[in-house]
């Protein structure tokens, strides 16, 4: 299987299309960082307008940690789309190129083949996320400096001490990796059913958009299914940026307010991955290769 994985990784990283995603992420982050650097004050005034009428804030609110948080929020839809570009093409691309029929006449097990391809797309997703982390966190810190992080949620705001932030980002990016691998698994599964590249990519993106809409609208009709949608759980990375307070409303450093939510989401996402990959193996084993 290692041999197959090596080959799959080789194919992914030699293909020009792969680098579109890296380029796109770089461009998007650069644009947002530039915008914030130039118009940061106006942006902060807008965001803090409500609180700003009662409070005055001192310190570097628009710091690297905060900018990274903004970036992660904004890229919520974009990164999954970029991942679909590769993941949803893993099988359909081979069929489209005509190489699938040659690959499967070789003495390799179909299960191993599918797993190798999936792991390769998972590794690709990880490298994309590492790239994202470097740009969104480290470059932001370099450009905007560090300070305490001030996060505004719907009904309360959270201030996290500068020395209490980094480990949260490690956790958040790790969680994001799991979420993005879930997206990859979905795309991968859908790519089994077509022999052209576009179909599965569009299908994956559509699924994500529709389920995101269902996840974010507070309509009672949707509330019953929300907990089962993976897009609902993909945003749980934000829970890393909330703290517990003691009886006197003092922040307890190094804590997370709702760790159970994180654990639940990790389990749900992992189950989704196992389900998609398992289904992929099952479908692929029975598939007649006509391409």
């Amino acid at each position, binding site marked *: 299987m290692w*041999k*197959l994985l090596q*080959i799959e990784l*080789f*194919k992914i990283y*030699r*293909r*020009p299309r792969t680098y579109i995603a890296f380029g796109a992420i770089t461009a998007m982050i650069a644009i947002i960082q530039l915008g914030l650097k130039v118009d940061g004050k106006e942006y902060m005034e807008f965001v803090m307008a409500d609180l700003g009428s009662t409070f005055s804030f001192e310190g570097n609110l628009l710091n690297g940690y905060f900018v990274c948080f903004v970036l992660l929020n904004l890229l919520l839809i974009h990164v999954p789309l970029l991942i679909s570009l590769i993941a949803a093409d893993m099988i359909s691309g081979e069929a489209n*190129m*005509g*190489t699938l*029929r*040659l*690959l*499967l*006449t*070789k*003495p*390799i*097990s179909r299960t191993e083949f599918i797993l190798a391809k999936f792991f390769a797309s998972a590794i690709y997703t990880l490298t994309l996320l590492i790239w994202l982390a470097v740009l969104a966190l480290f470059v932001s810190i370099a450009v905007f400096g560090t300070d305490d992080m001030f996060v505004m949620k719907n009904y309360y705001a959270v201030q996290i001490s500068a020395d209490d932030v980094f480990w949260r980002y490690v956790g958040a990016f790790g969680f994001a990796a799991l979420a993005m691998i879930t997206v990859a698994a979905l795309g991968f599964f859908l790519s089994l059913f077509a022999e052209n590249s576009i179909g599965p990519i569009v299908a994956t993106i559509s699924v994500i958009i529709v389920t995101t809409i269902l996840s974010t609208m507070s309509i009672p009709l949707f509330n019953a299914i929300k907990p089962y949608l993976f897009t609902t759980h993909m945003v749980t990375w934000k829970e890393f940026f909330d703290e517990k307070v003691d009886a006197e409303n003092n922040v307890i450093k190094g804590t997370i307010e709702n760790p159970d939510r994180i654990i639940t989401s990790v389990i749900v996402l992992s189950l989704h991955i196992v389900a998609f990959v398992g289904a992929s193996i099952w479908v692929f084993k*029975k598939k*007649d*290769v*006509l391409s």
Partner: protein
Amino acid sequence: MQDIIKVTGLTKKFDRFPAVNELSFSVQEGDVYGFLGQNGAGKSTTIRMLLTLIAPTKGEIELFGKKLQGNKHEVLSQIGAVIEKPDVYKYLSAYENLKLFAKLSDKKITHQQLMDQLEMVGLAQRAKDKVKTFSQGMKQRLGIAIALVHDPKLIILDEPTNGLDPQGIADIRNLILHLSRDRNKTIVVSSHLLTEIEHVATKVLIIDRGRKLVEGTAAELFDPSQTIIELDTFDNASGLAKLQSSRWNTMLQPSREGLIVVKLDKKDTPALNRYLVENGIEILSLQPRHSLEDYFLQITSGKQHVEAFTN
């Protein structure tokens, strides 16, 4: 002589449509086995089943004396295939493609072996070039290199001459002959081009609508000493009547386009000619028809299609 391939009762249904229907045949070591049939007859489907690309609905496939089911790994490592036009990774070079596919076979293939293989198909100079710059013929040669790089015992070629120019077709023919005669390989080649099969095959299987029509040695099927003649006379009807009441009766074939068709030993042609002259059947034209093409059209549904066109 071992059966390299033994197929029994092979059936494949796509949504109840039988693309292959109770097909049985065997290929022996050293054969150049030709699959003949029109487009859509079931040749590709059969070949894909041999290569595990498609799962049979029914039937048994044995390769190298082992059941395909359950011995996939062992069996496939001894087969090299080119299926339709060879598609490789366009964004990789010829060498990278060859190396990639070679890695997937169970054997260890050295850099030198890879270069030798490219040399053999005339691509050594272009080893580092990306395949997207290759012509169809070059891609074909690469496909063959990939099929042969792990020195398989059995080589399966599905429509290998598709899209090739006459030179390319000749190259394929020579390759098959070389592999068979000089390297002792067993080869299965499918085509709808009769002339190609005729030149290389030692045995032929003719498939029509998923079923076996004929299986036999080339010698049995297209006897070069026989020929088919089409006669056009002033009065074909009376001429035909005269022939029917003569010793030539058994050699008469169904009429085509109103012409009189006779199948006979080549050496009897002068005798026929004499008979016609002696009996006042005035000849407008006397055409020998290519035996295999006629035979083929005769026995397959191709005849009906041709007739439908001409009527």
